[in-house]
């Protein structure tokens, strides 16, 4: 008996992959019940050897519908919306099961989901909120890294926006629906979509994915600070940290920089008609004066560096070799970046050092550019002098020819040799 069983093992092993009657039958059908069978060719579960029955229960090997889709074999059919998270969690929250396929993959998505706004509302009976399949799709679930996956970095904003930018759908919740529109104008989306920088933040970078919830005001700077470390450090030491944490509608960095529509910052945020500082600091107060001072320094340094850059480009266009000075200019630009960073301490003294260093470099590179232009002038002068001597010599030779040939000498009337 045992020998027979032993013989069965290789037979079983070598008989994989088994038939998938779910796919076979449903492919032959029409309409809504055919769709899943067509979609699964792109599914990551199917690619790993799983089948419809592994989620929906039933027997994939049986031709008999009552067996294949019978309760005896555990068939559960299509889960209701409220049941979807548990349905997926059957496997995805099971570490022993997941270890068989992807040992490194997290298994806490369901736990996180339960803490999220989506999870809480679903548990309370709101079927309008997002469940697993709304973001990950169903039957054609692709890996996150797959370029066509709706949860791939480049597609996340669209996926979240499907609901969160839909005014009608969001009306009952009283939350804005302009986030996607604003995010599309941001430097982060620009870096992600045009710059090809896949590390740039999208919705889930700040809000989390399964446990999605906006960060609370006091932790905004920590969230931004996960990349913008030094800005966070300076900001948290400043008086603004305490004041902005109590602010409504976001708080932290978002008070000045906005949350979704984060644009390239400039000194226009410090002074001028659209100044952010002016929203709290009245004219001639210490704060307003500090803002004005720092804006002035940054603008001056920026203009000086630009001027040096222009002079060097000019020299380059004339054919002068200025690559070393242009390289040095990059150091100057770094000082400008350091100055703009130092602004976040909101104390002008902190900015003074990088400004001075930057101005020194701007000066040095300007002088290099001017020297190059002077060299260009020297060359042209040298050319003019040389051309003058040549012209004199040419004139002299011409006169000599005229003198020699004045009486027709040098010409013969004899025929050509051949």
């Amino acid at each position, binding site marked *: 008996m045992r020998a027979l069983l032993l013989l069965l093992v290789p037979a079983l092993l070598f008989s994989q992959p088994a038939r998938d009657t779910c796919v076979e039958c449903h492919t032959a059908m029409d309409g809504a019940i055919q769709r899943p069978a067509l979609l699964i060719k792109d599914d990551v579960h199917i690619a790993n050897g799983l089948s419809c029955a592994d989620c929906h229960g039933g027997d994939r090997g049986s031709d008999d519908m009552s067996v294949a889709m019978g309760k005896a074999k555990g068939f559960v059919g299509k889960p209701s919306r409220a049941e979807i998270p548990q349905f997926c969690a059957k496997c995805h929250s099971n570490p022993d099961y997941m270890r068989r396929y992807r040992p490194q993959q997290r298994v806490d998505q369901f736990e996180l989901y339960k803490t999220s706004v989506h999870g809480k509302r679903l548990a309370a009976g709101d079927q309008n909120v997002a469940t697993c399949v709304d973001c990950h799709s169903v039957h054609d679930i692709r890996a996150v890294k797959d370029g066509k996956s709706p949860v791939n970095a480049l597609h996340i904003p669209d996926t979240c926006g499907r609901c969160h930018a839909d005014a009608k759908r969001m009306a009952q919740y009283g939350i804005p629906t302009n986030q996607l529109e604003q995010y599309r104008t941001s430097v982060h989306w620009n870096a992600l979509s045009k710059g090809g920088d896949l590390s740039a933040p999208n919705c889930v970078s700040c809000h989390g994915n399964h446990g999605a919830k906006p960060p609370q005001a006091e932790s905004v700077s920590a969230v931004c600070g996960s990349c913008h470390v030094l800005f966070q450090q300076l900001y948290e030491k400043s008086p603004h940290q305490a004041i902005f944490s109590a602010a409504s509608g976001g708080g932290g960095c978002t008070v000045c920089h906005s949350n979704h529509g984060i644009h390239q910052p400039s000194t226009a945020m410090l002074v001028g008609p659209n100044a952010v500082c002016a929203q709290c600091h009245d004219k001639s107060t210490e704060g307003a004066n500090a803002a004005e001072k720092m804006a002035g320094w940054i603008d001056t340094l920026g203009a000086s560096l630009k001027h040096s850059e222009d002079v060097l480009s000019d020299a380059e266009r*004339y*054919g*002068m*070799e200025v*690559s070393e000075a242009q390289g040095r200019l990059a150091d100057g630009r770094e000082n400008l970046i350091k100055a703009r960073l130092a602004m976040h301490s909101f104390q002008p003294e902190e900015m003074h050092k990088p400004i001075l260093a930057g101005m020194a470099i701007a000066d040095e590179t300007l002088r290099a550019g001017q020297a190059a232009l002077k060299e260009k002038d020297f*060359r*042209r002068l*040298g*050319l003019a002098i*040389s*051309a003058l001597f*040549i*012209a004199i*010599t*040419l004139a002299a*030779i*011409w006169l*000599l*020819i005229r003198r*020699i*040939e004045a009486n027709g000498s*040098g*010409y*013969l*009337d*004899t*025929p*050509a*040799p*051949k």
Partner: protein
Amino acid sequence: MTAKITHWLDDRLGLSAIRELAAHKTVPVHSATRWYYFGGITLFLFGIQVVTGTLLLFYYRPTVAEGFDSVRFIMTRVEFGWLIRSIHSWSANLLIFAAFVHMFSVVFTHAYRRPRELTWASGIILLGLMLGFGFSGYLLPWNQISYFATKVGADVAGSTPVIGPAIARILRGGNDVGAPTLTRFFALHVMVLPMITAALVALHVILVQKNGMSTPPWIPPSRVRQMKFFPNFFLREVMVWYGALAVLGALAAIFPWELGEKADPFASAPKGIRPEWYFLAQFYTLKLIPSHVGFIEGELLGLAGFGVVAVAWALLPVWGVNRAGEARTRLVTGAGIFLAVYLVVFTILGYVK
């Protein structure tokens, strides 16, 4: 004093033969006399190349690692390095242009007739050598444009029927343009081509002295005036050469030759990469030919065509004269105009497209 030295040298070197020749050398004076200058201009510009090239040799390093940087060193650190290098690059282009003008002037004045067939043949080979100088020298700065232009050129050469791949391998020093290519091109440019050119130029110039200046067939020989070479024509030629120097200096100072960016073989070829202007007509012709003409590959047909034309052109003294030895002026002038127009038009098209 000078007389004493001259006599001493003459006694040992036999200079008097040369002095006799110089004293008797004449140049025909007629409507096409101005074209006689172009041989001298070509020679002068070649001389400029030898001088500036030798000077550049003092600083240039023919390796992938240092080639570009050594050229940049010449352009930025060496005193007047910018001048020597820019003159070398500009003069190369002017030299090839002058060589073409010289050739066409010989065609249209029918100076290829007996007894000047060997002068013509050596001249055609010299033209080819000048193009070889241009092609090999272009790679030496090892910048993006020159690297990819050489790649394209080597690929085209490689598609010559039968012998193409072997030629390309020998040229490149391998299957790709790389460090061996640079070393080979350097050897070609500073030693092989100069040696062959020196020999052929010597032959060419000696033949010109021996056979004298040719008079165009439409001028009856009995009616042509002669101008003494020394001092009359010679002084004029010195003026032309001096003028050429002034032009070179102006070009070098006002339009310095660019350095470009260091070649990066792993980068994609710069957009619109194409060979230098003197190869552009052929390059564009090859682009126009469809990929297959009947069962023959288009590029093969094009290259074969160029080969046929080159050989036929070298044999001009054979088919360009009739049995009596007179020039077939209408045929040759027609062929010359056709070739000149083709070259000009296709070069322009190669630039614009």
